[in-house]
């Protein structure tokens, strides 16, 4: 009787210990996944920043033309 009971709870403790280890590992993975998605977002916004015209335009009209070009491009992409 006693060995039987002991065996049951012993298995539970062993399972518990290994489970705790796995859980900690999974929590770590989850945190790293969150970091990764943050990096992805930052990468995306940096890509946008990089594609914007960087040279300073004193001519307002030239700027407007570029804006128009960008709008056309966006619409074209939307149509695809």
């Amino acid at each position: 009787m006693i060995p039987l009971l002991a065996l049951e709870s012993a298995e539970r403790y062993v399972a518990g210990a290994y489970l705790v280890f796995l859980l900690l590992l999974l929590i770590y993975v989850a945190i790293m996944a969150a970091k990764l998605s943050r990096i992805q977002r930052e990468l995306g916004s940096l890509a946008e920043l990089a594609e914007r015209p960087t040279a300073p335009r004193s001519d307002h009209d030239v700027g407007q033309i570029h804006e128009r070009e960008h709008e056309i491009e966006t619409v074209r992409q939307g149509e695809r």
Partner: protein
Amino acid sequence: MADALKSITLRRLAVGTVVVLGAGYVLAFFAAPEDADQGFIQKIFYLHVPLATVALCGWIVAAIHAIRHLRTGDPKHDARSYVSIHISVIFGLAVLLTGAIWAKGSWGVWWEWKEPTLVSFLIVFLLYATYYPLRYAIEDRDRQARYASVFAITAGAFVPLNFLAVRLAEPLIHPRTFSSTGGLPDSMLWPFLVCMAGMALLWATLVWFELDSKAASGNLKRIRRALEATA
């Protein structure tokens, strides 16, 4: 080019970890015999002790990186030191939790002051837990790194000393130890060593992973700064 090499190493490490750790636990549960004294609960040994050993070695490794950092001033050594401590602290948490479960299963109590490994580990863990408030409290990045390195070295010197002290503090009546690795039969020793190797690989994988992630964030910051400067 160096980054490409690095990511290959990370992949290899990860695969290696899965293979070795997996093999270790298969061996532990299917090849190793059940312990005569403790019964099935002794299987936690294959988890708890490798975790503890790797964590402690990790902290010593961190001290070595810290020494390199102080000697060269190169921040990459500081990063390695920091991440080594960080991953070891996480392992340390696992050590304490699995140790408590083992204690509960073996002796019916969640903690046992007469278990020298657990107690000395708790003290070391508490010490390294202060690493975070220490770094957080110093704003100047260069000074923060230097002071953290001094701490890492001091704490690294502390680890063996503490272990010795707690061992000595045990009453001469036989302490309640989980088991010692000395006198382990071969059938248990080999699975144990494989698990140990697997844990070490796991540690290395996580450290590499974390360092990569930090490097990526760092590079992104550089790019952002550069772009915002020219915009």
